């Protein structure tokens, strides 16, 4: 009996945990390998950080492999990432060659692990070319797309599709992201770990330490956006919205983020943000290390309102995190944010800095709505976006794809 799975019983109930153990038992210790491109930084690494140990505790032989790449490779994959999210990018033949060569290099190292696995889950495009290199594979391969590829830049998608077509199944966070592929496409929204250092309850003293560390004024409302320094997260739009509110209300803004090893563009975006912030003492641009989970947790808890004004978003785990902390979220009307932010229930969806400013002012003038929406938001996450639901869907999916045909009903 594992302690870690049992620890969630207090949050989701013991029956949910029993269900996970039952499916795990039914899968009978199969070997599952997850592959992605970074151990730290970003939502995928955070998901795998809890998912792999919990899969092991449910009885699977689960492991997590990270591909190694050169700076050139991560430049290319960032372009692929941007292209898949719809931005026109210039990807040369040489770029795709680098992409293939780095995948080949990694395949040599990972071949024994991947060949024997019962199920391989490849996360995002970076390691996608591993499958065509593994002709002797024994198990099922699943591609998991975490990003919004609803309207990809066609030249990038056309090349990537030739790789993805060979997979046995794929997983998307929302049906809007799915593309025409010749295999079953599952819809599995991601989730958060309520007991992780990023989401666990914090003492008041821990909150006060973080407040003091960054010189935040306890008397004035605090707006917080947590996300990588990425143009799709629209940090500049957030500053514009803050400035519109600042004219009439004494708010403070925290833009907290970091850069991941697989994201070479982050530094340039951070520089742009610093320039736009113009040393305003009430704009706190925090470039945090990838392991600053408690700090992020505290900032989200200190916030009056969470912002996530993305223009493209795969799912937006920072939205889920903010909601779990009982905060209303003002989010971009895009991707997975639409699944989580429901106007007047858990926050507001906006399309412009003006829209964000309007909703910030509304909430700050209706403090009771902040607490009401925050309470609804937390319960919405408990019911739909915690890791136990996510893990159950993965385990079920493993059962389903090992049966070769789509099944209408599975008894566990």
């Amino acid at each position, binding site marked *: 009996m594992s302690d870690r799975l049992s620890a969630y019983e207090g949050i989701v*109930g013991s*029956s949910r945990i*029993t*269900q996970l153990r*039952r*499916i795990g038992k039914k899968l009978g210790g199969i070997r599952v390998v997850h592959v992605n491109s970074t151990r730290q930084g970003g939502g995928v690494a955070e998901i795998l950080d809890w998912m792999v140990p919990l899969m092991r505790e449910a009885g699977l032989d689960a492991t997590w492999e990270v591909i190694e790449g050169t700076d050139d490779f991560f430049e290319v994959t960032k372009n692929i990432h941007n292209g898949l999210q719809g931005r026109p990018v210039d990807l040369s033949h040489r770029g795709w060659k680098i992409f293939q060569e780095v995948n080949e290099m990694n395949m040599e190292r990972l071949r024994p692990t991947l060949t024997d696995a019962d199920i391989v889950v490849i996360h995002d495009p970076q390691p996608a070319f591993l499958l065509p290199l593994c002709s002797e594979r024994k198990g099922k391969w699943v591609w998991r797309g975490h990003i919004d590829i*609803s*309207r990809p830049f066609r030249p990038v998608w056309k090349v990537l599709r030739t790789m993805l077509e060979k997979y046995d199944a794929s997983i998307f966070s929302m*049906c*809007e992201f*799915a593309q*025409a592929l010749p295999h*079953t*496409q*599952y*819809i*599995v*929204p991601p989730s958060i770990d309520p007991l992780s250092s990023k989401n666990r309850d914090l003492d008041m003293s821990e909150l006060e330490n973080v407040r003091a560390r960054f010189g935040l004024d306890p008397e004035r409302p605090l707006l917080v956006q947590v996300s990588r320094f990425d143009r799709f997260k629209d940090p500049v739009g957030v500053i514009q919205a803050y400035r519109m509110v600042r004219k009439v209300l004494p708010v403070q803004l925290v833009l907290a983020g970091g850069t991941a090893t697989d994201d070479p563009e982050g530094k340039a975006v951070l520089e742009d943000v610093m320039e736009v912030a113009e040393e305003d003492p009430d704009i706190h641009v925090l470039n945090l290390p990838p392991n600053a989970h408690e700090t992020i947790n505290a900032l989200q808890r200190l916030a009056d309102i969470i912002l996530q004004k993305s223009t493209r978003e795969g799912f937006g785990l920072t939205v889920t995190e903010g909601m779990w902390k009982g905060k209303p979220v003002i989010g971009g009307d895009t991707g997975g944010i639409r*699944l989580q932010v*429901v106007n007047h*229930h858990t926050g507001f969806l906006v399309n412009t800095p003006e829209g964000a400013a309007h909703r910030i002012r509304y909430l700050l003038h209706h403090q009771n709505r902040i607490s009401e929406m925050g309470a609804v938001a937390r319960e*919405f996450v408990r*019911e*739909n*976006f915690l890791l136990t*639901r996510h893990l*159950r*869907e993965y385990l*079920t*999916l493993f059962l*389903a794809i090992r049966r070769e045909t*789509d*099944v*209408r*009903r*599975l*008894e*566990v």
Partner: protein
Amino acid sequence: MTPFQVKDCGLLVRMSGLPSAINLRELRERIAACSENVLFHHFCETQLRPAFDHPDYRNDFAVWAKWYLSDRVLAERLGILDPFSMSSLEELRAVTLDIIDERLSEVAMIPSAAQGDEFFFLETTTVVFHTEEQVTHPRDLAKTIKDMSNGSVYYHFLEARRREPVGTDDFSAWLKEEEKKNAKYIRALESIDFYFHSLGNLKEDIVAALRKVDRKR
């Protein structure tokens, strides 16, 4: 009576393989061609998806007509459809198509959604979990249902109607093992207007109906 075995369930959602629909004519074509599982998902399994308790309509087609086709007339006509009052999913399909055909004959231009707001056709695998819990006497049913998850309520009261005996919920099917003795419970369950409820409200109504019978005994 045989003990009633409590089960729970969850859904694993997948794309049906049908192309998405961007206008009412495409919606009609896809509904005519889709499998019964797809139809069942968009009419009946919506209850188990992340949502708030009081959406305008219970089925996805009505919601899409209202929000993305901006056709409130069609939304209202589709929104009142109760799939559990039909004898089969084929009857449901025929009635749905009839409503859409009627609307297509009324409008001057075919209602259309913006790119990105297409209707996506989904289906699911239902994962059924056996629990350790069981009910041995009808008087304990209300108490057990009160503590059930939404998944259990859905499985035993709604999804059950698709299984043998078709059109009957699991609780009633169990109570019918001693039909005469349990007639009041069975009638109480039959009296619930359940389709337009959220699962939370439905659970409350089932418990209230059964407890009312208990009090009268």
